[in-house]
């Protein structure tokens, strides 16, 4: 089993509160892991530690040398055009790869656009192209769809599923949307009280159907882990 992430006993303390309290995590190469949790449970904190943006207060973590992040907001450099944002820091030689990445996210015609002229969904797709063009072994997604409207979000979820299936990076997706997690992930972990309370493999076929009884059952179970009681499942 080749690993892309290996974390042992991770701790992170804010003030008197341990947001992460001895978290162990293994992610295999090519595996798509969704991290669920209510707000303030340390999902983003864990992701930022994996990205190397924040230091843990304790424990150890190993990640691949090439890893990229798509943040909740696009975080594009406003003074660079879309293509220049995609290949930022890679030199002009990466233009062809950058254009290919933009084509993959369906934005070939926007290569010369300024970030301020892009819609929210377009800007986030540029951010996704920027993350993919570096051919990461670990792709970290920090609620990348949270700021998008519902329709755009559906398109983006399909796009992510397709691109991840093609490039096979290990993916850690932080989200609070249970359906999104079930739709996209191979494995789902729920953070609560500083540790994982659930770590399940999604045993559904790809091309998942939200109305599939197994889907509904898994959704109910995960929501219960998150502290949400669903009455819908009690009916049938």
């Amino acid at each position: 089993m080749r690993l892309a992430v290996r974390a042992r006993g991770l701790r992170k303390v804010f003030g008197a509160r341990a947001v992460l309290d001895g978290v162990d995590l293994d992610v295999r190469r090519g595996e798509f892991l969704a991290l669920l949790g209510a707000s303030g449970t340390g999902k983003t904190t864990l992701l930022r530690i994996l990205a190397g943006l924040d230091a843990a207060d304790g424990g150890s973590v190993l990640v691949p040398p090439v890893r990229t992040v798509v943040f909740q907001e696009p975080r594009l450099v406003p003074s660079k055009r879309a293509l220049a944002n995609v290949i930022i820091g890679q030199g002009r030689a990466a233009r062809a790869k950058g254009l290919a990445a933009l084509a993959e996210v369906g934005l070939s015609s926007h290569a010369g656009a300024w970030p301020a002229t892009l819609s929210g969904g377009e800007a986030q797709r540029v951010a996704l192209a920027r993350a993919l063009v570096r051919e990461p072994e670990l792709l970290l997604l920090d609620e990348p769809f949270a700021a998008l409207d519902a329709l755009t979000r559906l398109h983006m979820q399909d796009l992510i599923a397709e691109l991840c299936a093609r490039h096979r990076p290990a993916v850690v997706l932080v989200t609070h949307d249970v359906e999104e997690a079930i739709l996209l992930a191979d494995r789902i972990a729920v953070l609560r009280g500083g540790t994982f309370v659930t770590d399940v493999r999604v045993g559904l076929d790809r091309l998942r159907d939200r109305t599939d009884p197994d889907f509904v059952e898994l959704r109910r179970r995960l929501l219960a882990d998150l502290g949400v009681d669903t009455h819908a499942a009690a009916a049938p």
Partner: protein
Amino acid sequence: MSVATATEAGVEGLVAPAPPRRAGRHPAVTLALRAIGPVLLLTAWYAATASGALTKDVLAGPQDVVRTFAELWADGQLPEALRVSVTRAGLGLVLGASTGLLLGVLSGFTRLGEELVDSSMQALRAIPFLALTSLFIVWFGIEEASKILLIGVACTFPMYINVSSGVRNVDRKVVEAARSFGLGRLAIAREVVLPGALPSIFAGLRLSTTLSVIALIAAEEINVTAGLGYLMARATDYLRTDILALCVLLYAVIGLAADLALRLAERVTMPWRRAVTIR
């Protein structure tokens, strides 16, 4: 522990991330590091004068300057000179900075204001204020008025440039939101635009403060009978390099003290800037 050894052994192809280190240094170490430069300069000055490489008619040593400071302070000459000079610079700064602030907000916030004010400000800005010294004497006489006005003119422009660009850079979306909640133009300027432009306002104020001391020196070349400039003029006549060095140092101290006060004010007036975290 077996887990720990497994981790230390590592996993092929994986590395430990290198997060940026935050706020690692002890405040005392920071202070010591900051002090290195000034202490070295002082030592070099002392060494050069004590060894005789610099004679007293070229530059007096730090120990002479300290002695002179004590003498002049005790006989009241220095406190009086400082009071006069700091008052001049301060009044000029208040005059110039408030003019620059007013015109800057006007030009940055309203279209009409920009059309009316900006071109003339840009043209006037090209005039070196030192060139105005003689004209100001003719217009306002050799008393305090011409000096304070000269300092005021010098301080107006850095303030104007910074404030107008700061006001222009205030987030239009927040301004639009405020307008939609029924705030009038004055209320928007007061509640949204001015706080948003505060960083630029302070940048302008700090530049103006430095310039006020420079303009003070120029202004005190005009027929002075009091102030640090007067002290320097007399010291030149008697070749008292200790007094000259002392006055040069005092000008620097005035500038530094003003800058320090402004940086403190920045912290106090913009508490939201300290609370910035990346999430």
